[in-house]
């Protein structure tokens, strides 16, 4: 069975400092992994995805994530936090279902707070 664990429910950083949001996954085969961001009362926006190509994945808004198979991790990073980055972030693992469907398995989310 596949699962995903977001290790921190809340993270606070100062504006201009690095961001690290941690995600570990469990999968019996090479997974597809995603990071999404959700601002309050909004839908989810895809930040980046890993689908067995390059292990370092660059996304939108300066975010990137590194797939580390030996550590079963897919941590999200950003060199310098901006106030607009304050939101909830979800790590997702995606197994292949039937008929080409992908039933996402979501982490419980990490709420990022950016301090001025």
């Amino acid at each position, binding site marked *: 069975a596949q699962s995903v664990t977001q290790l921190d429910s809340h993270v606070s950083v100062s504006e201009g400092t690095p961001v690290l949001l941690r995600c570990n996954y469990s999968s019996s085969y090479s997974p*597809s992994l*995603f990071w*999404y961001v959700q601002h309050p*009362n*909004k*839908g*989810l*926006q*895809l930040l980046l*995805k890993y*689908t067995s190509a390059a292990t370092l994945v660059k996304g939108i808004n300066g975010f990137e994530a590194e797939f580390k198979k030996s550590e079963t991790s897919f941590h999200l990073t950003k060199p310098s936090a901006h106030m607009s980055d304050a939101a909830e972030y*979800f790590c997702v693992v*995606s197994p*292949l*279902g039937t*008929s*080409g*469907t*992908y*039933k*996402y398995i*979501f*982490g*419980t*989310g990490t709420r990022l707070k950016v301090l001025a």
Partner: protein
Amino acid sequence: SQTIHQWPATLVQPVGSPLSLECTVEGTSNPNLYWYRQAAGRGLQLLFYSVGIGQISSEVPQNLSASRPQDRQFILSSKKLLLSDSGFYLCACQGAYNEQFFGPGTRLTVL
């Protein structure tokens, strides 16, 4: 790229009343579509998915049902709402590979 619309944006309904939430998709054809619910303080739970017109798969037995009357229309319904049906409902459309794109969501409050 596809655009996902959800209607209404917010809804307040009494217990026992019916429900109909609509999701429509533009910019793609024959997409796989998904309904998720996000309860307060909790993660997202997959409710239903559909691979085509009239084809619905349910993930969790509950008070809700889904229908897909047209290729790019996905509807979530209930005959009698429960308090536990409150939440944020998200429709998603599968992209060209295995990513999903989400609509803006519907906030449902059952009183």
